[in-house]
């Protein structure tokens, strides 16, 4: 038994002292004000001009991508989309503070982290159009990205399942001396799942170098944070599990960057988990299947639009004298054109071969799936008009 959990650390008292909530006050790290000016006493992290402009461009790119893909969904070109509007700083700046060999295990609203790593417009489109160029073979709904080369684990829809997995992944990294951490993204809603509690506890007990990054964006579909938990957000739970914890302004890219950078150092040096709670707001609908007018007011949304994380960081970059207006405009224009062109290209690419229906269920295709596939091909040959995606290849 070590000191951490031994009874000898528990002091005694003779007074009946039932501890009330709110006794722990966890402040929020903030470096920039809403106009992008450094707050009094705040020290900006060491961020090169290249890094800063890359963060800014990634955020702008993702906002464009989100807008275009919501439109593409409305036009019936893709079946589903999920935007991260309002939360760009939280994911972009945290991803920017990592090394490329660090693992990212995301929930599903972290496309900005993937873009920062270098995922291309074409790659985004191949996944969203479920075509044969998607390395995940078109098996999941749009936005369920995954890319081994970029150390970005393929997304799973069930909520919170990645949290204990990240603990295990990080434990393996530590065991093999990889000098790398795992970052695990999730929302405040997913933090209600049993997997959250299991994952944090295991990471703490087993000293896993994992960064738990909670995007507390105020809503889980329609359920507001006040109906999700009664305590002091998600940060207070980290303390309960014996995990080093920091709360940051998720709309302040500088604060997110420095918090994640330090969390990474601590996770590696002390071989332990760190929890970051980023306070932000999901300006987007939950997804294209959702309509926020059913549960929140326009006034509330307007209030948060003023706290736009992109503009805030942009003002800081301008203040540093690093912003090139013309170059930036050219970048936005080109990104918009690239996205439009990539949509048109990706939607014309065929889906995977029919054989990929049974591949990857196991490492090799077992006899019963071979049999089912043969049977299916015979059937498609008989009714080619009814299976237009695959009839050409089984002729």
């Amino acid at each position, binding site marked *: 038994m070590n000191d951490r959990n031994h009874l000898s650390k528990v002091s005694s008292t003779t007074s009946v002292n039932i501890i009330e909530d709110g006794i722990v006050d966890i402040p929020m790290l903030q470096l920039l004000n809403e106009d992008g000016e450094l707050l009094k006493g705040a020290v900006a992290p060491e961020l090169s001009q290249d890094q800063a402009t890359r963060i800014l461009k990634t955020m702008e790119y993702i906002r464009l991508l989100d807008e275009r893909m919501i439109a593409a969904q409305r036009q019936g070109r893709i079946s589903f989309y999920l935007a991260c509007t309002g939360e760009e700083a939280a994911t972009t700046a945290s991803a920017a503070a990592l090394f490329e060999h660090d693992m990212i295990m995301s929930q599903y609203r972290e496309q900005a982290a993937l873009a920062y790593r270098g995922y291309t417009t074409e790659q985004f489109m191949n996944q969203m159009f479920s075509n044969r160029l998607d390395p995940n073979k078109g098996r999941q709904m749009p936005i369920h990205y995954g890319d081994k080369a970029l150390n970005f684990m393929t997304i799973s829809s069930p909520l919170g399942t990645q949290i204990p997995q990240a603990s295990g992944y990080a434990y393996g990294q530590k065991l093999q001396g990889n000098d790398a951490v795992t970052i695990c993204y999730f929302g405040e809603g997913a933090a209600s799942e049993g997997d959250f509690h299991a994952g944090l506890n295991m990471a703490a007990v087993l000293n896993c170098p994992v960064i738990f990054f909670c995007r507390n964006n105020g809503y889980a579909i329609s359920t507001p944070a006040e109906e999700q938990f009664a305590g002091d957000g998600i940060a207070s739970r980290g303390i309960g599990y014996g995990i080093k914890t920091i709360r940051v302004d998720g709309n302040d890219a500088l604060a997110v960057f420095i918090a994640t950078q330090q969390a990474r150092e601590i996770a590696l040096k002390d071989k332990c988990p760190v929890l970051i709670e980023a306070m932000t707001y999901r300006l987007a609908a939950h997804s294209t299947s959702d309509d926020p007018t059913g549960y929140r007011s326009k006034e509330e949304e307007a209030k948060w639009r003023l706290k736009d994380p992109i503009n805030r960081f942009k003002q800081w970059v301008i203040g540093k004298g690093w912003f090139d207006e013309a170059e930036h405009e050219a970048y936005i224009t080109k990104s918009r054109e690239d996205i439009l062109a990539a949509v048109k290209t990706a939607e014309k690419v065929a889906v995977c071969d029919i054989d990929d*229906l049974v591949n990857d269920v196991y490492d090799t295709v077992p006899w019963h799936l071979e049999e089912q596939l043969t049977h299916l091909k015979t059937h498609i040959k008989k009714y080619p008009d009814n299976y237009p995606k695959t009839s050409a290849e089984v002729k």
Partner: protein
Amino acid sequence: MAKMNLLQAINNALITEMERNEKVVVFGEDVGHFGGVFRATSNLQEKFGKDRCFNSPLTEQGIIGFANGLAAQGSFPVAEIQFADYIFPAFDQIVNETAKWRYRSGGQFSCGSLTIRTPYGGGIHGGLYHSQSPEAYFAHTPGLKIVVPRNPYQAKGLLLASMRDDNPVLFMEPKRLYRAAVSDVPEEDYTLPLGKADVVEEGSDITLVAWGAQVEVVQQAAAMAREDGVSCEVIDLRSILPWDAQRISESVMKTGRLLINHEAPQTGGFASEIAATIQDKCFLYLEAPIARVCGLDTPYPLAHEKEYMPDHLKTYEAIKRTMNY
């Protein structure tokens, strides 16, 4: 009578029961003010207050564990799991607690008043996590009842019966039909029997068994077979557990042939149980092997959803093979 879609029929059943029994409590993710992501619980919070219809935190194991306790206390919980694909964190609570509570306490306590509602099934471009049909996992659990409606009329009558049945019921709603299926539904209170299959079309050559959204698929196949002069008896199983083996046996003794269709993967699917029981009860009446038209033994696909589905054409071909055996 009123024209209702399947969601409206479910909403109507919930209102009917909440008015009749003040111990009914409805909850789950987003079911409160918003009325659920499919709007099955629309207006319930406004009508019955936040104490009787509310959002739960995002935890399926919590939802069912909470519901189990509430049921054991004597309330009538109707717990929603937003998608059947997300029911698995609650698997322990359902399999080890909900289903076994009565047995382990010698009948002193039970979760008999619990109803779990969950949308299931594919055909909505949902891929592997918004399309599954997990009824067979639960059919292996003594103590549970499993009910699946095929249309709005059935949905209201079966849901009312489920909420009043003194056993825990897993009520699986075919989400593909939520808005697509519209039928006349009585506005008054009525129930339909649990554990009883429903003969949708009478016939003499082959019995076709399905449930939920697949009933209309086998009906389409039956119509094609009719053109070939084959008379199909279409039966909606309605209850997966306990299931109406007697009604299916009677039909197979008449037709001599059986085909079972379900969306879930074939291996270990509920068709296997039906086939085993029917060959036992009707062995000397069978003129052909029992046919299964099911999903493939793969996770539910996205790009190849159409190829995966046990559609009317695959069913029609299987009818022909069975007839020509």
